[in-house]
Structure formats: C-alpha cells, structure tokens
C-alpha cells in the first residue's frame, strides 16, 4: 500500500503547527509535530477527507442584489469547483427566505445549498 507524508498546517489557533502526517491508503498511521489534541483531530480529517464550507452569491430574478448562499454542511474539498458550477447554473426568483434550500444535494454530496439572507 502506498505511503505518503503530508504537510498539514493546523488551522485551530495562531500557532499554526506544521504537522507531518503519514498516510497509508485511507488510513492515517502517524502524526508528528503537533502541540495539542485539536491538531490530531484536524489532521486525521484533513489528511484523508478534507472538508470545506462553500459560500457564494447568485443572481436572483426580481432582486436588485445577489443572494448569498452556502453549503449547509462542509462538503468534500474536491467537489468545490463542481459545486461552484452548479451554483452558477442556478436560476432563482425572489422571494427567497434565509435558510431556504436553493439546491438540494449539491453534486451528490448529500448536502443542500441554502440561502443565508432573504431577498
């Protein structure tokens, strides 16, 4: 099985530990250079299945201002660009309420895209 050493910067606090994370396939086998347990937890996720929130705006028919939207949960990092394309293809019309789902199950991630304000 392939072994990789990843360099991951912890994002939990200003220290920003630069951790060396050894991965075999989908398993984290070793984490070095961390200062606290939060780093370990972050590194385990980040090394094998990094997740990101996506936020964006989209045009809404009937509204002068764009609608701000977000993924209701973080989605896999490698789905961000597909997610942005899906967002650009949205054709919405007002009124839309904050919290309303504007796109369900974006890119088969199981995560909805919701409005973060009302227009």
């Amino acid at each position, binding site marked *: 099985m392939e072994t990789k050493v990843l360099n991951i910067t912890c994002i939990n606090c200003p220290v920003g530990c630069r951790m060396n994370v050894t991965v075999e396939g989908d398993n984290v086998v070793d984490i070095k250079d961390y200062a606290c347990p939060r780093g370990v937890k972050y590194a385990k996720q980040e090394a094998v299945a990094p997740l990101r929130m996506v936020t964006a*705006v989209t045009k809404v028919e009937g509204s002068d201002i764009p609608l701000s939207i977000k993924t209701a949960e973080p989605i896999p990092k490698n789905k961000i660009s597909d997610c942005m394309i899906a967002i650009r293809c949205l054709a919405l019309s007002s009124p839309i309420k904050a919290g309303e789902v504007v796109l369900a199950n974006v890119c088969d991630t199981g995560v909805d895209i919701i409005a973060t304000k009302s227009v």
Partner: protein
Amino acid sequence: MEYDIIVVGAGVVGCSLARELSMYNTNVAVIDKAYDVCDGSSKANSGIVHAGYDAEWGSSKAKYNVEGARLYPSLCAELNVPYKRCGALVVGFSDDDKETLKRLYNQGIKNGVKELSLIDGEEARKLEPNLNKKVTCALNVPTSAIISPYELTYALADHAAVNGVKFYLETELLDAQFVDGLWHLKTNKGEFTAKAFVNCSGVNAAKINRLISRKSYQIIPRRGEYYLLDRLIPLPFERTIFQTPGRMGKGVLVSPTVHGNTFLGPSSNDIEDGSDTSTTVDVLNFVFDKARLTWPEATMRNVITTFAGNRAHEDHGDFVIGRVEDAPKAYQALGIESPGLTAAPAIAVELKNLIVEDMQLDKKDNILPAPHRNKPFIDMTDEERAEAAKKDPAYGKIVCRCEQVTEAEIRAAINRPVGARSIDAVKRRARPGSGRCQGGFCSTRVMEILAEELKISELEVTKSGGESKILTGRIEDVEGGCPIC
C-alpha cells in the same frame, strides 16, 4: 464639420480662449484628444496664482503673469469657483539665498508686484510658526493666491459651452492643411474646417506646430510629482511656502489647497513621453526630503495620495504667444509652463484680441452668464443644508462621506454643460473620492449614478475613459457555457 475658429487643446488656456471667443458672433469648436477637458498640465499642477516676482522682467512670462494675476479675482467670482489670496513666503537658508531673494524682490517691484517685502527668519516664523528654524530670510508675497485649476477649467468650458462653443473630446488632430482660405483639420473623428486655427495643446504644442509651420520649437515635458495630505490635519502653513528657486523652476512647495488640504511638491524632471504621469519612488522621496526642509514636522502618516503632472517646457524658457508667422490665420500659445495657469486668462485675452482684429468679429448682444453653481454641500451651514434637502431630496443623500458630497452634486457634475463621463471626471468636478478613503466607499455608488445618468451599463463605466473600465463582468456570466446542465 465647419467652424469659424477651432481651438486645439481643452486645457486652461484653450478653455479660457474659447470662453473669450464665445462672447463674439463666431462659431467656435474646441477639440482635444483626451477623454475630458482639463486632462493635461492643467489638471495636475500646484494651483498657484503667482504674484509675478519670479519671471524675468521684459519676458512674456512676466507680462502675462502679472496681467493674469490681476484678472483672476473677478474671473473666479464670475465663474463661481474658489480663489483664495492666502499669500506666499519664499524662504531662504543662506546668504546666497538672501541675495537671490533680493534679486526676486527687485524683479517683482520692476514687474509691478505690490506689497512685497523682505523679512528675516524670525519674522517669517512669526507669520508661519511651523517653518524650519533654519530659515534665515524670506520674501513675503501677500498677493500670491491659490485656486483649483481643474474647477476653474471646467467652469471656463461650461461658460464657453452655454454661449455656443462645441467641445469635441477624444478627437485627435492628425493633419492640418490651409487650402483655399480654409483650414482643413484631419482628425480621428473626421475632418473639420475652420477659418482660423489656434494651437493651445500644452505638451503637444510643438508637435501640432510642426503640422502648420516650418519654424520648429522643442517642448520638453517636465514632470512634477506631488503628495497630497488629509485635510483633517490642521494646516501647517496658511501661506504657500516656496524655497529660493534654482535652475529647474520654483522648487518644492508646501502649500494649502482651496479645499483645505496641504500638498508637497512638485519635483521637476525632464521626461520623454508627455502623457506619462507615473510617479516614481526616488522622486517622491526627493520631494518629501525637500519639503521637510521647509516643514521639518512633515510625516507620511497623513498622505492620502501621490500624483504627477507634466509641464510643457519650451527650450528657450519663455512663452510663445501670438500669430504663427508662416501660416495664415493660425495662432498659438506654446511653452505654457509655470506661471502658465496664472497667465492663462491674460494669454486668452491677447489671442482673442488678435483673432477679433484679424477676423473683424463683433461682440454678441446676448451673452449668457456662467451657469449657476450651488454652493458645495460641505461649505453650507446647517440652515442651508436643510433648505437644499427640502428643495431637492438628493441633497439628503451623502455619497462621499469624507468630502460630504451629495447625490445631487454628483448628478449635477454629470449634467453640466461639459459634463463628467467618468469616475475621475466626477471626482474632479464634485470631489467624491478626493478624501482620505480615496473612493473606497463611494466609488461603487458613483459608478452606479454614472451608469444611470449616462444611460449605459455599469460595465461600460470607466475611471478616465478609454479602456479604463472599472469592472470586467457579472457573476452570472459563465464562460463557455455550463458543463453540467
């Protein structure tokens, strides 16, 4: 397009002349290759109405300087633009400087400048307490004044326009031929014909002159770089402070502006390209060091912007004003560098007189006054503000918070006779974006108002014409279509 007179160059000289001619029964057009009037030397200079001690006695510079300075107060009043007689000190640091100041004093007296006096360092500091302790002598020039060079030029253009002068911008003169008693002027926007032709084209004047005359002039663009300081700091000096002049001009000044800012500058460097108004680090550092000689307390902390402007220095160092010797019905104002702004009204009168004489023009019966301009909101009292907002609710919307410019004033700037068509053009006419945030907050709104008033898309709005667009697209534009749907 047929006109009686075509003026090339919409700077302060061209617009002054156009305004003078607009009072006669004749058909006048001004052409300029720039996107806006007042886009060359007239836009970025020190804005000083020089008293006239500096120019050599007997020179054209001295003659037009003194006469121009005399015309300014009534001209500014008539056009309703700011003019402030703040006075000036020329300060010296050595015995050599003292000798030079004496020479300037005598020259000033000879040129007819009033109220001049030589004072010592201590007296100078009594007038201006922030002056360097090392100042040992000064020439006190109470008649020196400050104006806003672009507000003046816009007002001149507006007044000319209401009296019938046509302005053709983005119109570059490519060739000029005198055929059968008419000037045929080839431009990028088609051919113009005119009975008379006037060259007031600043740094391009030598080039234009070559189209019509065998007599060759050499104009060297001389760049000046400036710092502008926030008007929130108390003015360090109430007067314009010059240092004793050297070979390259009047040196670095520290001066108030009519809007309550302080500026430091200009430098003086000969350059190749007259349209290149880049700033440079070395020169800006030089300006700052020089300014500190006048004002040791100067700090970068209050700088809100830096800029550069180019002056049209003619090789022989004097103005060339009058008829073009070897071309019929052609006139020129060449080499109009400092004190060109001061001299402009007098140069315009001189050229107008020659043209009126040659063309036998009659004065119009019905000359319209300069268009009325409301007092700027920032200068109004609370009572006046209440009144203005009652009459026009757009006075109740402050768009530029730093300079307190209202929506009403921005719309008015766009709808003036020679109106603003770009963000910078609005900025120079009504001041949004001239303050400490430099448009960070208001430029988005100014852009929208421009799009509305000019009935164009926001994507077409420019900073200063041409390709200087602000935006490149909309969020919904998907290049190449969507690969998913």
